[in-house]
């Protein structure tokens, strides 16, 4: 082998520059020309090398995979591999959610393909890769250990008091990202005992940490910060009642009147400093603060007459999401969708938060042309990213015959549609090829999803 490599080196650099090694164990071949002799030697030695290979003994086999304790979803292999080939990650994640419930794991043939997705979709896919997936990830050097968030969450859940002590002792040594994650986990079993540590965090040198602390300090009325904000909010709304009517006057605060720990909202075009200060306060106050008696609809009506109605609305949207106030989320969503003349596409911000009933009612009316603009509704459905009911899915498929721009949108929706809506795609659209292609595409996606989900039925 050594002699062959020496001959190969001579061939690489040329016999004009290098001398061939002497090879005693072979007869003189190739005549006197060194290049000819080099070629013969290479041929003979390579043949000897090839025929003389015995393999090597120094390679250790990789360890074998551990036993899989959970059931392997064998029947999912073909449809799942189809979804992976087509890079339909949402479909794979949908399957993973069901497989996780059934404590089923991926067929091993798909592990290498799925591991490339695990880093990005760790929470959804890690539970379905099974023992073999974890073993393979370890062999491939993939870091799949729990994230800091998860470790902190476990710590907090186990013993909130010990967590507080640990955070107090360690926070100085943490970098700001760690501090942020650690403070956020105080939301688990949040109590009045957490107030001191959150107030310290409210003075943190990083804005992100301060905001996370404020988020928690405003979430419970018993906290001093929440109380202080409620006091700040109290003079904002002034109801004036006369004999014939009631009117609402909104008094926006000056920024200088607000505490330093209250963060400034991002600038909005056309809003002055007082309007921005109003948004800052309203967005951190529970929306229920504003309407103690009377309906929200009446409140909106009065609010719309104020110069500060846009600022008030901006603050309310953020607050409704922040405090997860479902009646307010629904009321605001309905308001924003019905008044596109004023609010344009602002409802998109709430599309994902409206209750299913509210969302569906508005979407169906819009798609059927009863109320609302259908293009606006389509935008809302896209923004919501929520699974669509059977009825809504059917209504969407029915729009296919009327809109030529719906190919991309509909195939996108097909990932969220109810799989039983496939029945709505049975009739070919003969009059238009483009629509027919879309119908087939939607049908294929729904069919794949249906096959994938039903492939788990035997494990149920």
């Amino acid at each position, binding site marked *: 082998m050594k002699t062959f490599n020496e001959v190969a080196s001579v061939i690489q650099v040329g016999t004009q520059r290098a001398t061939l090694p002497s090879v005693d164990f072979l007869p003189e071949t190739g005549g006197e020309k060194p290049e000819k002799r080099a070629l013969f030697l290479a041929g003979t030695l390579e043949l000897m090398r090839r025929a003389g290979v015995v*393999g090597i003994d120094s390679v250790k086999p990789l360890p074998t995979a551990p036993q899989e304790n959970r059931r392997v979803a064998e029947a999912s292999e073909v449809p799942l591999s189809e979804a992976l080939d087509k890079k339909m990650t949402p479909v794979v994640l949908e399957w993973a959610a069901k497989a996780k419930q059934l404590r089923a794991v991926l067929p091993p043939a798909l592990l290498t393909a799925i591991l490339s997705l695990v880093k990005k979709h760790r929470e959804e896919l890690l539970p379905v890769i099974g023992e073999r997936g974890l073993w393979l990830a370890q062999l491939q050097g993939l870091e799949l250990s729990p994230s800091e968030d998860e470790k902190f969450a476990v710590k907090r859940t186990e013993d909130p008091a010990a967590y507080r002590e640990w955070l107090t002792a360690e926070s100085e040594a943490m970098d700001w990202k760690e501090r942020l994650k650690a403070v956020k986990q105080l939301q688990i079993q949040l109590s009045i005992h957490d107030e001191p540590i959150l107030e310290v965090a409210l003075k943190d040198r990083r804005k992100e940490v301060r905001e996370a602390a404020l988020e928690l300090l405003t979430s419970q009325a018993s906290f001093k910060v929440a109380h202080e904000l409620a006091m700040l909010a109290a003079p904002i709304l002034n109801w004036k009642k006369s004999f014939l009517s009631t009117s609402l006057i909104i008094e926006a605060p000056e920024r200088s009147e607000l505490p330093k720990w209250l963060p400034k909202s991002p600038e909005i075009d056309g809003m002055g400093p007082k309007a921005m200060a109003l948004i800052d306060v309203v967005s951190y106050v529970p929306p229920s603060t504003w309407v103690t008696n009377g309906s929200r609809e009446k409140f909106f009506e009065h609010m719309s007459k104020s110069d500060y109605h846009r600022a008030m609305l901006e603050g309310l949207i953020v607050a409704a999401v922040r405090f997860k106030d479902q009646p307010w989320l629904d009321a605001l969503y309905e308001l924003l969708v019905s008044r596109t003349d004023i609010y344009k596409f602002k409802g998109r911000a709430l599309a994902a938060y409206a209750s299913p009933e509210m969302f569906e009612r508005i979407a169906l009316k819009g798609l059927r042309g009863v109320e609302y603009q259908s293009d606006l509704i389509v935008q809302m459905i896209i923004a919501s990213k929520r699974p669509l009911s059977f009825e809504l899915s059917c209504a969407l498929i029915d729009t296919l015959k009327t809109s030529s721009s719906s190919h991309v949108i509909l195939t996108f929706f097909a990932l969220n549609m109810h799989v039983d809506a496939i029945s709505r795609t049975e009739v070919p659209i003969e009059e238009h090829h483009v629509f027919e292609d879309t119908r087939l595409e939607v049908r294929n996606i729904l069919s794949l999803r249906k096959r994938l989900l039903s492939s788990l039925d035997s494990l149920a």
Partner: protein
Amino acid sequence: MPRLTPEQVIALAPDASAASAGRELASPAKWASIGENDLAAWGEAKGSGKNPYQTAVDLKDLAYKCSCPSRKLPCKHALGLLFRHAKSEIEPGTPPTWVQDWLDKRAERSEQKAEKAAATPAASPADAEKRTEKRWSKILAGIEECESFLEDAVSQGLYASQSARSWDQMAARMVDAQAPGIATRLKRIGNAIGVGETWGPTVAGQLGNLTLLLEAAKRIETLPEGLKADVRTAVGIPFRKEDLSGEPVEDVWDVLGSSIETEDRITTCRSWLQARSTGKWALHLAFSAAGQPFDFQPLTGTAFHAKAQYYPSAYPLRVNLTEIEPQPFQPRKGGLIAEGLEFAADVWAQNPWAERVPIPITAGSFGRKESDWFVIDSAGRALPLKAEDPWYLVALFGNQPIEIVGEWNGSSLNVLCSSDDPWT
């Protein structure tokens, strides 16, 4: 022919995208009509055009017909049809006229071919000898040029002759000299120079092997018959099926592994078969040009009774198959790496131009040394794997010992198939 499995259908696909598209077309919604009988499967695939594509597959010979514009063979529609056939999703039926016409024409052409072959008078031995002599003198002239080209390259060093173009030009000259086998080797060398970290020894080995071939070709008259046949084949004068004269070996042949490769627009399907009663190896080669179907493509995991006539060689391996009758596949046990290497050494000692040799390994597992992958047998002996990602196999079998069949070229093993079932 036994019903194909979905894995075998994937193996038929010309590339991964065709396989994927074919799988997509396996959905019932994609077919306006579909049917099959013992001879063929057919269907009308809905496409973007107004009319559906008419697709048919001859299940006996695996030939395809489709009215779609794709040049891939089989196209995605034929693959979709085969996937549905593999999953037994097609209802039996009577072929429509367009399918029956196609099948009739195929049968007619096959008959005509057989008749023509029977009717063509064999060239007189004297004429054949004259023609071979004429061709051989052309080849010898080409060889002389080729030798001085190689000597120049080695004299200057390969670093100085890294242009693949000059190698291609020499290869073209060898095509003119009617030595396409030499031309192919020259092109491979030209393409390998400077590629990868270990190109030096690889190319030196290829150059040396080619030099031995050129020398042997010059002295062909002095060589024993078997080796003479190997030189002739390696130079590029293949034997015709009709010229094979040895006694055929009649046996049941298990297809243990196959691979498909494309070089110079010719696609070759290499299938390794093993005789059930004697364990004798046989290599079946099927060729296809410009996307035409293979005449016969043995699929891994299938078996058939056939008469195998070996092509002349110092170590005969390649066969021509006739009277093929499907049989159930019978898995078998492989062996140790050392046994496979011994077989390889035996083949190369007799035919230095044999490129690859099959090695069946029992209880094989995978291992790594730095970035290189190896297959390891139960005795702890390891062989390097072809530079390909074996993670799929590791994941699939959890690195439990499995049966492996690979092709060994002296430097790396290309895994053709593997199984976690004990091959008894």
